[in-house]
């Protein structure tokens, strides 16, 4: 899944960053725990909520690195 433009080939590796959220969130075995809690919120909940801005940030980075001219 990359842009088929030879001049852009190099910058396409940035797209791999998008896989991070996929790996971090799709398998709940990674995060289905109660502890450690944050402000009383179990890990299961705060981890997933934290992944929302992290994933947005990663998408933002990929945007700036691969922007269409």
């Amino acid at each position: 899944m990359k842009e088929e433009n030879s001049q852009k080939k190099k910058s396409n590796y940035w797209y791999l960053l998008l896989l991070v959220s996929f790996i971090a969130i799709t398998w709940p075995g990674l995060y289905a725990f109660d502890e450690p809690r944050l402000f009383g919120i179990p890990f299961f909940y705060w981890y997933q909520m934290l992944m929302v801005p992290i994933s947005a940030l990663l998408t933002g980075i990929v945007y700036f690195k691969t922007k269409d001219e």
Partner: protein
Amino acid sequence: MNWTALTVFIIFFIFVTVLGFYSARWRRGDLNQLNEWGLAGRRFGTVITWFLLGGDLYTAYTFIAVPALMFGAGAMGFFAVPYTILIYPFVFVVMPRLWSVSRKHGYITASDFVRGRFNSRTLALAVAITGILATMPYIALQLVGMQAVIQAMGFHGSGLVGELPLIIAFAILALYTYSSGLRAPASIAIVKDLMIYITILVAFFYIPYKLGGFGHIFDAAQEAYAAKNPPGSMILTSQSFFAYGSLALGSALALFLYPHSLTGVLSSSSRNTIKKNAALLPAYSLVLAFLTLLGMMALVAGVKVNSANDAVPQLFLAMFPDWFSGFAFAAIAIGALVPAAIMSIAAANLFTRNIYKEYINPNCTDQQESKMAKLVSLVVKVGALAFIIFLPLDYAINLQLLGGIWILQTFPAIIIGLYNNWFNRWALVLGWLVGMVSGTYMAFAAGLKSTYALHLFGFTLPGYAAIYALVLNFVVAIVLTFVFKALGMENGKDETVKEDYLTAS
């Protein structure tokens, strides 16, 4: 009757109604062109697209049903969060290609694209019908969200009188969608989204304060879930891992196959608008996460409900002063109008472009085409209303569940189609058919639940039926493509070329 809440509710409702009718003048275009009525001339920039897609994807039904799932089952209900995380990287990579090719060839629906790519009227028809079938119950369910808040304000009449507020609200919606097209939901979405943000932020910090803090809420929830029959759980248990992950992934892949999501994508003004929004739209996901937890708070607060759908409205009434409850209810009800309008426009576009123009009146003028779409948008809404008023609620809920399974079966034709035209068109049609039938079978076999327990090599694996059906769909499409190629059958003529998918404007 809760008069304070009702008054605030009505004031906001009147405000958006006026706004809806005035939207026709916004960035004025010739509304007798389908491109203008149904896609607002493809001119929406980053900010408007953000509000429009936010209002479109995070619907009133979501706002009622997701916390209801949390209220009833616990951790499983939180799958909405990974679901919305997975959507955006996918949108970022795939949707700019659809935007470019659609701009180049004037495609208004996904079905238009499939027809052009694979030169198959049958495949295009399959995609159009799937889209319409999946959207109809979704529109009906927006009414359920609206109904929940109207009842919470004290309307409990039975029969047609009891449904009167709903009928009035929908009639108004139908009229301004007819006259203003996609511009109406876009302008209303701005108001709605701001109201939702205010409501949820206030609720998320104020309600835990009243309930004794987050730590206490989660501890109390743990006990409350354990005491339920069947028991829920506060932390996801290992036998639900695959179901949770596959529901999140399947729902994420399906969301942007729905006609109303594609309408939001195609109405934007550039590829970069879509990419930027993939990074900016997660702000709504955070709001959705907060909202989902309100379902748990309703359980801890011990609100009395007839159905789980009443959990959040009743929580608001118990915790907030009446005027703020009225504000929150208006936010949810207006939240039903935006997606209902966009969905009916999207369904109307599909019918007009891919059924009416293709099979009934091939020589129609642009004006006739636009007129037809406007009429169909009315019919679709009347149909949805009748559905909710005359049939048991379960029908709409079950159909929406089936709709999610069905719409994912258009993935090979649309999404893989954006990358290559390797698949044989008839192989795609047959793969789609197998996916539709097997997905429907699995949903019924599971007792109209979205998770189906697959028995494989002695293991039992409960997972999202849409994903299992999609795997079958792919297997059939791939095997048959090899077979058809071996038999010497040729692919249809592709009217698109590689560069069409990358052009920036």
